[in-house]
Each structure stands twice: as C-alpha cells, then as structure tokens.
C-alpha cells in the first residue's frame, strides 16, 4: 500500500494536474472526450439473441507524448434503465429455506455492459473508480432504509454484483476499446439478449494515468418491438383493458367449448 502511495505521489510530482484532483475546486483539463453512435434508438425484435454496439470517439486536446506512452485509458459503459433492486438471502428456519434478510439498493442500472482499453481495476485506484462510479465493482450501490451497523452492506453488494454478472445483465470486456488512430477509438459494448426496454446511457470516461479526466454521456433508447412487447406494453399501460380482455377471452373459450362439445 505504501509503495502505491509513493508511486502516486511520484506521478503527482511528474504530472501536476493529477495532484490538483485532490483539491476541492474543479480542475480544468485540456483533454476533452467526444463520442458518437450511429443512432440514438435501437429497435429489437423478439428473436433478438444479443448484439454488439459500436461507439466511436476521440480524445481532443491530448498530449501526444502521453498518448505515445499509452497513458490514456478509456472506459465505455452502457448503463441500462435504473430501478431500485432488492437482494434477499435465504436462511433455514425449522428446516425450510426462508428469505430472512434483505437490502434494497437505490436506482441501480438493470443492465451494465463495460468496455475498456484494459482491465478497469488496473486503470485507476479503487477510490477513484468508486468516485466516478465506473466498473462493476464500483457502481454506486446505496442501501435504502435501516441497515443496522452496516456490517452486512458488503455481503449484499457482493451478492448483487455476482447475481447480475452470472445472470448476464452485467458484462465486461477488458479489451473492448481499441485505438484506431492516434486519438480516435472504437468501443464495443455488448447488448445482452435480455437487454431491458427503456432509456440506456452510453457513458464514456477518459483516464490519464489513473486520474479521471473527462466524461461524456449519450442517451440510447432501446425499444423492443413485436407482438410479445406489444402485449407486455398493454399489460402495464392499459392494465384494466388487458385484464378485461383476459377475462373475455376466457369466457369466449369456455362458451365456445360448451357449444362445440355439446352433447344434446
């Protein structure tokens, strides 16, 4: 740990801009990040099995010598629509497995696809990543309500990340961002087959030698199409009509059956 601190200090001395981050007032960096996607809306049909989304971007106002030393790192995240998520843990009570403890995290993305120039953990120190909220291990997971002495927060956070990753909702691709020219880059993020409907955000982050420099975000609407989504939309947006239609369908089916199979 001391060695790392010493290293950081050394870097800070070499690049004064990095040291300034520690101060309160915002620091103006010369570098700017620009990104672009070919569309701000994606239509997905019901046979969608997942796809790659390519994002192009450029670093402006970069320092050529730093670029040559590969000191710039880019992390692009596709964040799904946000919602409160509850993690529950089962415990055995009288031989039966019952949900006993739970924790609700406020407004976390339903899906999260990460693409970076290299493994995010090696790009910057954990406090920096936590501050920016980038990386599966560093997404903001703030519990809602009473959490006791807070000793269980880590347990629930870890379970949340593990479940989201094993379910394919959270993904990472440590080599997904590639420079195609000096400052022009291409990022590939994965859209999982179960990509949630709604407004996603493409968020690109620029790091210079472990220091967070700039961020750029673009909205991306994911719209599922097809009959299944139409039915699902009706169930949520016109619940009363949907329920009435379900009942009507059942009444008609039963009534038709009694006519078709009538014995007398």
């Amino acid at each position, binding site marked *: 740990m001391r060695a790392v601190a010493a290293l950081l200090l050394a870097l800070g001395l070499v690049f004064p801009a990095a040291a300034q981050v520690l101060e309160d007032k915002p620091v103006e960096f010369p570098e700017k990040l620009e990104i672009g996607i070919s569309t701000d809306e994606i239509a997905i049909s019901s046979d969608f099995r997942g796809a790659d989304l390519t994002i192009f971007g450029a670093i402006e106002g970069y320092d050529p010598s730093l670029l040559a030393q590969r000191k710039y790192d880019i992390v692009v995240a596709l964040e799904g629509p946000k919602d409160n998520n509850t993690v529950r843990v089962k415990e055995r009570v009288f031989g039966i497995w019952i*949900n006993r403890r739970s924790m609700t995290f406020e407004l976390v993305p339903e899906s999260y696809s990460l693409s970076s120039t290299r493994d995010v953990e090696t790009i910057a120190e954990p406090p920096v990543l936590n501050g920016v909220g980038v990386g599966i291990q560093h997404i903001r997971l703030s519990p809602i309500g009473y959490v006791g002495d807070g000793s269980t927060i880590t347990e629930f956070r870890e379970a949340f990340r*593990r479940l989201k990753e094993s379910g394919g909702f959270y993904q990472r691709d440590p080599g997904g961002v590639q420079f195609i020219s000096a400052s022009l880059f291409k990022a590939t993020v994965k859209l999982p087959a179960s990509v949630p409907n709604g407004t996603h955000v493409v968020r690109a982050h620029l790091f210079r030698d472990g220091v967070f420099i700039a961020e750029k975000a673009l909205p991306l609407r994911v719209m599922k199409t097809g009959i299944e989504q139409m*039915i699902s939309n009706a169930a949520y947006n016109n619940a009363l009509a949907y329920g009435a239609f379900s009942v009507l369908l*059942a009444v008609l089916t*039963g009534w038709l059956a009694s006519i078709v199979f009538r014995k007398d």
Partner: protein
Amino acid sequence: MNIFIILGMGAAVGFLSGMFGVGGGFLITPLLIFYNIPPIVAVATGANQVVASSISGALSHFRRGTLDVKLGTVLLFGGLAGATVGIWIFSLLRSVGQLDLVISLLYVVLLGTVGILMLLESIRALRRAANNQPVSLRRPGQHSWVHRLPLKMRFKKSKIYLSVIPVIGLGFGIGILTSIMGVGGGFIMVPAMIYLLRIPTNVVVGTSLFQIIFVTAYTTMMQATTNYSVDIVLAFILMVAGVIGAQYGVRVGQKLRGEQLRALLALLVLAVGARLAVDLVVTPADVYSVVSEGVYR
C-alpha cells in the same frame, strides 16, 4: 418457454379435470411453478384459466336447472370480499419477499390434505366394492350449529332455509384461496356445501361453478391491475388445451372404474405436493436472490 410443453400441460390437466370433475387449477399452478414460471405469474394466470374451464360446466348445469343463482350470488358476495382481501395479502407478501414461500406452503398443505383424503376415500370405496356393500351417499340429516345461526334466507332452487353467515363465510375463505393460490376452490367448496351446509348434492356443483367463474374473473382483473402478472398468451394456450383435454377426460372417465382412477389422482396430487415440499427443504443452489422493484418502470 416451449409452447408444446404448455399445451401438453393444459391438455393433461384438462383431461384429469374432465375425468374427475375437478377444476384443475390446483394442478396447473404447481406445474407452471415446476416449469420455472414465476409463482406470481403462475397464480394469476391459473385464475384466468379457471374462468374458461368453469364456464362450460356452469352453462350445462344452468341448462339442466341444477344451478341455484340466488345461493350462488350470496356465495359470490363473500367470494369477492375474500378475493379483495386476498389480493391485498398477496401484494403485502410480495413486498416483503415471502410470496413464493407462502404459495408453496399453502399448496403443500392443500395438496397434502386433499390427496390424503381422496386416497382414504377411494380405499374405503374399493373395500366396499370388494365386500359388495351398498354405497351410502347421504349422511343422516342432523342439524348442526351452522343451522342455528341468524339471518336466515330461503333458497327455493336448493329447497333449503339457511343462514347467510356460513355461506358468505365459505365464499370469503374460497375467495382468499383463489387470489393467493390461483385455484377455483371447488374441491373445498363442494364438500363444505354438502357436509357442512347440507345443501342438496344436485345443485352443489353447478352453484359452486357459478361463484368460481365470477371470483376467478374478478381475481384476474385485480391481478392484472395491481401486480401486472396475468400472462394472456400462457393463459390462452392453457385454456384451449384444457377445454379440449377435458372433453376426452369426460369420455374416458365414463368408461373406466372410478375408484382406482380416484386413487391414482390422489397419488398424483400427493406427488405434486411432495415435490413442492422437497423444494422448500432442499438447500437452494443460491441463497441470494435479486429482484427489481419495478418502481420506475
């Protein structure tokens, strides 16, 4: 989700329900849960499917004049109130994360009880048949505490003078079961009406079907508007397969000996209950689970 498995499930349960004259909701919902359909969807969709399977039966009873609309309406008052309370309990259980557990527990208790009672009944019937004893359908008509209750009402079709309190109470209890378990509840209501309320057997099935239609329809509406958990496609496949399967079930049931079949159905019911019980006890693959609250949908 494989459409052919759902069709097969609906047809098989329809066949059994036609053969034994049961609603089948108490088999459809657990089967859907075994097929990894979330219990919340299985219950709501099961209730929707029961609407269809009860209608043709109720219509034929209505034509034959074996349906007491007045008695059914009193039952229905209780049923709708029960379903309203049941939906409220359902949403409460869901918000505290205990819904799946309670559904499974209720099914284990219900299927276990019904299965054991059916098995004992059919064993007794088989013994009687072996000894050539006559079958006594009606117990001695003693008046129980039920018949001393106030607020009596005359039900002409049933030829009975009965307090509305136990009728509404029965409907209320069944309404709660309908909304939490997605069953019609006929398999409880019919014996309760015969043995507890002493309603003549000929109107019992038609009248219970009458109340089941409206309570399950109401439950479907409530589930659709509060929990958004009715899957209309799944329900429709089950309905169509179910009503067709039931027709063949009725024909087969008329040809075969009843007692052995009833014992087999009892064993099937017990097996489904046992499977649910095992799932409650076996250590889950992952003790953690995550659920999106759906607040910002």
